[in-house]
């Protein structure tokens, strides 16, 4: 059981992380990720990240840095201009992993207006699991797993920060 203060800090982090992703503020979003970050979108329900099955996205910190560098080039066509996005976060449940470390479950519905291509609205519902830790008085994430409801597909282009 976490305290009210811990809950507020975790929720504050989730909302900030969502806003930076929604607004495609790539480097500010990246600054929330720890060196041991694992950013993962499995391709199948119940998938284990180490079972040799392919993922839709499976970034360690190095590959995540490459992803952010690519988005920051300004010529990543799939995000020029960036998708206009709005994500709604709900059903936040928090467990303590260790002192100052939290496992956080939430439900997310992301609305994406695909302004750079066919100008359609795409909806991305997902169960999301974060692992967060307090470092030097600031909340950071060292894991974000996004379980898309439609992970087995078909899945449309997903070049923004999910």
């Amino acid at each position: 059981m976490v305290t009210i203060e811990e809950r507020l800090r975790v929720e504050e982090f989730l909302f900030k992380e969502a806003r930076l992703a929604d607004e495609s503020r790539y480097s500010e979003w990246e600054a929330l990720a720890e060196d041991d970050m694992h950013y993962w979108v499995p391709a199948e329900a119940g998938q284990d990240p180490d079972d040799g099955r392919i993922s839709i996205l499976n970034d360690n910190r190095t590959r995540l840095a490459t992803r952010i560098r690519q988005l920051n080039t300004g010529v990543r066509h799939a995000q020029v201009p960036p998708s206009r996005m709005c994500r709604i976060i709900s059903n936040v449940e928090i467990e303590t992993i260790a002192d100052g470390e939290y496992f956080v479950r939430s439900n997310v519905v992301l609305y994406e207006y695909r302004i750079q291509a066919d100008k359609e609205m795409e909806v991305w519902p997902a169960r999301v699991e974060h692992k967060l830790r307090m470092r030097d008085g600031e909340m950071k994430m060292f894991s974000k797993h996004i379980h898309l409801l439609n992970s087995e597909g078909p899945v449309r282009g997903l070049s923004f920060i999910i």
Partner: protein
Amino acid sequence: MLDNSRPSEGIRFEELILDDRVHSTLYTDSEVFEAEMDSIFRNGWVFICHDSEIPKAGDFVRRNVGRDPVFAVRGRDGEISVIVNRCAHRGNIICQEERGNAKAFVCQYHGWAYDTKGGLVDVPYPAGFKGDFSCHGLERLAKVDSYQGFVFASFNPTVPSLGDHLGRATELIDRAVEMSPVGRINLSGGWVRHQLNCNWKMLPENDTDGYHVNFVHPSFAQAIRSNYDEAVLQDEESLKSEAKDWGNGHTELNFSPSYSRPLEWFGCAEDRYPSYSKALREAYGQEKGDKILLDGPPHAVIFPNLFLGEMNIVRFEPVAPGVCLHIHTPMYLEGVDDDVNQRILRQSEGALGPTAFLLADDSVIAERTQLALAGKGGWLDLSRGAEREVTDDNGVVVGHLTDETSNRGFWRHYKQVMQGPDQSSPTAAAAAA
């Protein structure tokens, strides 16, 4: 079908496909799409699966042939059948799971049961069933054949042999499996299904288009310093890679001439995987082993729906004139250490699929192209490099990396298939049946 005419009868392909250009209605017209489903996906050979996906008796995977739902299943005799996924009674989906193992397939609607060959073996309340079991089996695709474990099938009982269809392109498949020291690949990594709102033909076209790389993928080159930019992001004269037309619609971008050291195509130095290099040289001999290590895997499309995407295998799936799927899996190698296959998996996730460094950009460009072709449309130019391509000793047409040799090869074959054989021939009769 009730209508005795070929769906393509009213479409004048000879006017829509010229040597140096094609008309945009080929990407947007629903009658063209229907004709393709018939002439290409029902009448010709279509890639289904690799036999490593269903190694044991009873193993199955679901697939689509064009839009027809099918499943491939290995029988107790070891043979693979490709069966239409539709109960012979009232049409329910028979094989509901995407993959798995079954001794029999039982319809969940009225309980009709079929064996792994599609034969009807049980009907509940049999007293009311006056039919003949042997006449109520599931529909099987008339032809199933394989090459190096790649399983192809056709609805057409009189389709020319798979060998005729593959022609010289068997060499491309050989090169893929010879990346393994034991000559076997393993597609056990699962598939990612990426939807693009564009016509399916843009997939084989773009996957063997060497001209777009500098313009669609500069962000990749800028974000990653790798052999990739050396291989393709150079000025015209120094580009050594080639666009190739292997005949029968099979096309390739041959990057091998751009590599100067072993495993460059794998983005690493040779000493990164010493046991892999050693195993290849031991298996194939010093000379051929060296060549495999230097040349790397093929980057080639086998008409109409298989892409040997270097260390990935891709299936193309048409959905509607403006919707298709690009479905990929890592091409795992048998007989290598796990860390080699681990690298193949990570590269597959990086290059292909909805989030990938490469394909996410290709997909947005393809979707914009589809938008541009709306309405009355117009002509698309395919003339680049026609005057400088050459035919090599094996009959393969070879062009500069940035030339449209490969796409011209695709369209030449497409036109021939879509125009179809003479109406009186057995194949045409089968198509109309």
